[in-house]
Structures are given as C-alpha cells and as structure tokens.
C-alpha cells in the first residue's frame, strides 16, 4: 500500500509525504538507511520509507521493474549483469564501500588455521565456498587467485549459504571460504585470512553495493528520486561518521549475536560512486565471465540530475 507512490510526477514535501517501497536484503550494508530513516533524513524530505526484505538480489529486480518497489539494494555485480542483459536498471546511490584495509575488509578469503594453503594460488583444485555462484564473491575469489599468480579456472567454487559454509569450512567439506560480514567475524574462530580480494582489485575503497531503480521510474518521478538520493546520501555520510550507531542499529533488522555486533568490520559508507570503481568492477566481471557485455559508467549510474 504505497499511497499511490507509483503514480507519475510525484513531488514529495514534508506536507505531502510520499510512501516509498524499498527492497532490502538483511545485511549490514543497509544499516545506514535504517539509521538515516531513524534520524529523519527521509521524512524531512517528505519520504516515508517502507522496507521489504528478500533473500537475494534476484528476487528484488522484478518488483523494481514492475514499479512495485521504488528502489532496492543489491551488490554491484548483480546490477551489472542485469544491465548487461539489457534490463533497464539504474544505480541511484552507493550502498557501501570496501574498507581498503588489508585483513580487515568486508569480504575476505579464509582457510582453516591448520590448512596447508598459504596463498590464493594454492587453491588450485580446491573447493571454495561462495554464497552465490557467478556473482560477486566468486569474482572476488577469481581476482585473488589471479593476483596471486594462480589459475582461477582450476578452483572449484561451490555454492553454500554463509552459515552452512562456516560449518563446512570447520568440518573440511570445503577448503576455503569467501566471506562477507558478519560471517567473516563468525568464521574467524579457527581460521585465518589468506586474501583481501578488494585490495587485489584496486588499492582504494570500492563501491561494492548500490541502490538501484528502473529507468522508467526515474523518468516518471525525477523529483522523487532526487529527494530520495539526497536522503540516502545524507544517511551514508551520517552512518560513516557514527559507526557505533550503525552497530546499535543491526539487531533491529537482523537476528545477530550481540557478541558479533561489537566485532564485525563495518563497510565504509560514502555518497558518490567513482568512475574508477565502476570500471574496475566491469573489467573484472568481464574478465571472469560474470557479464557478457560492456557496461559504461553513464549507462549504469544515474547522473542525479532532475531534468
């Protein structure tokens, strides 16, 4: 019940608020928006945020395309691959960024403490778990193996949900795991890091997840999305400045162990998406066959101009 939110030409103001349906995945990255909403960054712009959650990004694309959700959260590779297939999606704002701190990033590759594997190059012929095949984490695995001088094609990636991957790593069902927070923290007991793959892609912080909508919705409601983008960006800035509040926000939308909350590595939140960051992903995604076609920065990212 989005209060006629899909109608064209909406101009949200605090006096005439508009309900915006958002599609999130319950992961740490979206904490920034929960926090921003709590701080009133959305309501002050006349936006009433209504969050829906789904298990994975693929299930969030259809409702955005059909206009049921105004925007949704996804990792950048999923959006790239949709865009490459010709789906008219546009990134409206950054979601979260890598930390660019070696050994303390949001995604890493872990092996059991006593494993003989020392470097990603040793992963040849080994089973490595990722949460989704042919997506971001597998690409990170490929990147890390290549960077270490190994052959990514020789690695056996297997798909396992994170909690099960942690167990599988423990009992030897898989040899290594590409992690993402909070499961990097959860998996840290008895394991060690052999790579921080984002740093293998670029030495700087990269935009790893984004908020996206459809081209059609952008055309119909430019004013709404301008306001929305402003609210998201303000939230990101605020979140980056208040990591403790971000941590405090986590239990409100995740079932997370309080002990883990204090330890997880938070991503960097920052408005704006650099062209270098996008290009790095496009290059890697193409190289490792995550996407089939080139995607240009301007195609992918909304200029933010209301006109």
């Amino acid at each position, binding site marked *: 019940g989005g209060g006629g939110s899909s109608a064209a030409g909406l101009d949200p103001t605090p006096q005439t608020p508009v309900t915006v349906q958002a*599609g999130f*995945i*319950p*992961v740490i990255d979206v904490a920034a928006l929960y926090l921003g909403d709590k701080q009133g960054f959305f309501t002050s712009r006349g936006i009433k945020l209504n969050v*829906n*959650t*789904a*298990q*994975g990004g*693929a*299930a*969030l*694309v*259809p*409702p955005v*395309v*059909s206009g*049921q*959700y105004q925007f949704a959260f996804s990792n950048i590779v999923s959006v790239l691959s949709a865009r490459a297939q010709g789906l008219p999606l546009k990134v409206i704002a950054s979601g979260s960024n890598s930390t660019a701190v070696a050994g303390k990033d949001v995604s890493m590759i872990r092996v059991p403490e006593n494993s003989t594997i020392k470097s990603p190059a040793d992963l040849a012929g080994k089973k490595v778990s990722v949460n989704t095949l042919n997506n971001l984490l597998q690409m990170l695995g490929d990147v890390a193996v290549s960077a270490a001088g190994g052959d990514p094609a020789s690695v056996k990636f297997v798909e396992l*949900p*994170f*909690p*099960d991957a*942690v*167990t599988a790593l*423990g*009992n030897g069902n898989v040899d290594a795991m590409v992690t993402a927070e*909070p*499961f990097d923290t*959860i998996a840290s007991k008895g394991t060690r890091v052999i790579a921080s793959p984002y740093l293998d892609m670029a030495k700087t912080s990269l935009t790893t997840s984004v908020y996206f909508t459809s081209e059609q919705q952008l055309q119909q409601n430019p004013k709404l999305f301008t306001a929305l983008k402003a609210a998201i960006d303000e939230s990101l800035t605020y979140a980056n400045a208040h990591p403790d509040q971000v941590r405090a926000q986590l239990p409100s*939308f*995740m*079932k*997370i*162990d309080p002990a*883990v909350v204090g330890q997880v590595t938070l991503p960097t939140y920052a408005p704006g998406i650099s062209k270098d960051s996008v290009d790095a992903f496009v290059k890697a995604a193409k190289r490792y066959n995550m996407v089939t076609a080139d995607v240009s920065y301007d195609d992918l990212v909304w200029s933010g101009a209301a006109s």
Partner: protein
Amino acid sequence: MEVLEAPPSRRAGAAAPAPARRKRRPVAPVVGILIAAVLAELIPRSGLIAGDALPPLSSVLAELARDAGHAELWEAIGRTVRTWLIGLVLAVAAGVVVGFVIGLVPWLRAATASTVEFLRPIPSVALIPAVILIFGTGFQSGVTLIVYAGFWQVLVQVLYGVQDIDPVARETARSYRFSAWAVLRHVVWPTALPFVFTGIRLAASVALVLAITAELVIGTPGLGQLISVAQSSGATTEMFALVLVAGVLGVLVNVLFRLGERLTLRWHPSIRRAGGAR
C-alpha cells in the same frame, strides 16, 4: 437377528471399552514424538553430524519460548496461515473440479494428458520472477504459487480415484438411471474421496512449504521471511526454532484432516476394520 437398541444404562456399559480405546489412542503418537525428540536432542549433542550447525532440541525450544513472547512471531504465523489457507482452498477446489471433469470425460482426459504432464513438473520456484511481476510481492504471489503446485497434487489423485469406481456399482447407478450429477455425488465422489483426502494432505503440506518458501524468497512478511532473516544473519538456533513452528503447523494440519477423514470415510475398510478382526 436382534439389534440391541441399548437402553441408556446399557449404552453406558457398551461405551465402557470405547474410552479405553480412546485412552490408548494418543499413546503411539506420544511415543513417536518422544523418540524423535530424544534423537533431535542427542544427535546434535553428539556432534557426529554437522558439528555445531545443528542445535540440540532443548536450545531450539528455549529460543522458541523466547520468541513466543513477541507478537512478531504470532503475526508471522497468522500471515503464513492465511496465505496457506487461501491457496490450499483454491488449489483443492480447482483440483477436484477439474479432476472430476477430466476424469469423467474420456476424450477430455486424452486431450489434456500431455499438457498436464508437461506443466506438472515445472517447479513453482522457477516461476517466482514471473509471478512477482504479475502479482507483486504481497501474499497474492504466495497464493498463486501454492495454487500452481497444489493443484496438480489434487488433480492426479482425483484422476486415479475416479478410475477406481467399482464396475458393478457404476452399472447399478446406470441401470437406475442416475442423473450425471447423482452419479457424481453418490458413486464417483465417495469412491474418489479416499484419494481426494490423500491429495489434500499432499497439497496441504506442499502449500505450507510454498507459503514459507515464497515468503523466504520474495520477502512477503510471514514465517518464511523470519526464517530468511535468521538464515542470512547466521542465527541458526532461531532458524530452527522457526522451522520447528513450520513443522508443528504441518502436524496440526494433518490432525485436522485425519479427523475429517474419520468422519467422512466411516464406511471405508481402513476405518471400519477396527471391528474385532484378529
């Protein structure tokens, strides 16, 4: 032959063995549940399988007790049950009606057989994107998926049931010129009823599974969505607590249908055999 029209006092006497039987009734299920519960407690504790990924029953129950204090769980159950019920009713109604029509008209059966067999094995889950696009992310999508999956369960059972009519019974009805409706109601329906019940019981659990799966994947509020959140946060115990709720719902559903079966199939050999055979 003498029908013992038992006077009240006598009837009470005759009823005496009945409570004994009724008292015995819950013993077997309770024993079964106890055995399962003990296994569910011991296997995870032994750590033989799956290390600590499988929490023991006691901690799952403790978690559940905690959840039961929150309205969130009950709301979720309510939502899931609503989706389940609407979907199931529609699926069963459609399956029974279509099943009888197809089953009774031979050429219709021949004409639809290939299409039915083509459509049946298509998993509802594969249709999720298309369903979201048409029906949105509300509970209607879950209902649609349930109807799609449950319909086939009922349909196939009904088709086999309709085929099971005793030829002599059918001829009797024909010779007395029963109308088509009367044949359906008094001959076909009772014969197919045991099959229909099996179909409904199959559909009921498939429907529950899909109600939860739809919530899980699409994110419609309900039990499945809670499971999804628990799963992606690594809250294993919480997840199993919710799975336990799903299972218990399934058991309750079955108890309900067993009761219905006992009431409507009193004449059936499986129910009437209780009468003193060795």
